[in-house]
């Protein structure tokens, strides 16, 4: 088994949404605190490769500059007409074989960026190892669900959790075999 450990690392509203219906993240501003990154840089430093779906890719690609220039990214999409981008590889099909290839390249930890359909596919293939979820103290009522059900049932182990001054609660849950 050489595939990298796959961690979903994501912020969610308390009612389980990762973006508004139109994709907006403005509600994340609620927990903006000067000098507080909620462990993001420490996490990012442990990541060898990014894995994302088309939806997340489109969001990232819409930024003025590619937000992850110093890490390779793998994007799952059925489209074949996306313009090439440095450091970004487009793939399709099952996730597990792609992860095996990434493992063969020496990557130890993959960040599954974005929730939704790809996270669900990873979970169904049994390759989603860890859920690192930052729950914001806000209900937004509707939007893109972090866990678009129905999913498979899965028992987890709480590895650690902590609360921040802003009211954000972050937990790390590991998939149980």
């Amino acid at each position, binding site marked *: 088994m050489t595939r990298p450990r796959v961690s979903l690392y994501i912020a969610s509203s*308390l*009612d*389980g949404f990762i973006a508004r219906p139109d994709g907006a993240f403005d*509600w994340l501003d*609620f927990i903006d605190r000067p000098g507080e990154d909620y462990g993001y840089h420490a996490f990012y430093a442990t990541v060898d490769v990014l894995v994302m779906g088309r939806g997340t890719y489109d969001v990232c690609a819409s930024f003025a500059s590619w937000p992850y220039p110093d890490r390779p990214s793998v994007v799952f999409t059925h489209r074949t007409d996306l313009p090439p981008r440095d450091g970004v590889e487009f793939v399709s099909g099952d996730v597990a074989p792609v992860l095996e290839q990434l493992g063969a390249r020496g990557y130890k930890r993959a960040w599954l960026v974005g929730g939704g359909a790809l996270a669900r596919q990873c*979970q169904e293939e049994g390759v989603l190892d860890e*859920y690192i*979820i930052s*729950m914001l*103290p*806000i*209900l*937004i*009522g*509707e939007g893109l669900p*972090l*866990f678009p*059900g*129905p*999913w*498979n*049932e*899965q*028992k*987890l*182990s*709480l590895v650690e*959790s902590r*609360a921040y001054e802003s*009211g*954000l*609660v972050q*937990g790390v*849950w590991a998939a149980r075999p």
Partner: protein
Amino acid sequence: MTRLVTYGAAVSLDGYIARPDGGVDWLHFSKDAQAAMAKYWPTVDTIVFGRKTFEIAMKQGSGGGGGGADGGIRTFVCSRTIERLDVPGATLVRENAGEFVARLRREPGKGICIMSGGNLAASLFAADVIDEVGLNIHPILLGDGVPMFGGPARDIKLSLTEYRQLDGGCVLVNYRVLREAA
């Protein structure tokens, strides 16, 4: 001063309070959780149920007439579908649940506990009658079931008032609903 209205539930990490059939076999009943509930119950004298939650509670022998442990608890069951309720000690509420709870919380008394799923909770959030939200987050993805939240489509900002890990890998969080300054 109005009475404190709390909406709390044990919930899976993916936000369900029960399986699609109402099953709660996945709940972890720890001493920790029981102690938290034992501290909470004396602050409450009224329970407002959603109809489905009430039916599940009845099946488990914990609905109506005071939830077993506490005498003198008033029990209301909100429903827009059933026309009568033949459970001693429980009163059917057929009017708009938000307006009902809004009136209830202005009456003298202790805290009001909401026991429901996302549907009733959404009506009560929409009517702005919920003061506190509590979750006992269990380390499981159920994949499908009865959601804890069901809207409404507006932002409700919260302030974290309590956070701690419980036995069994559960995480307890309590929040106060932040309202715009009146």
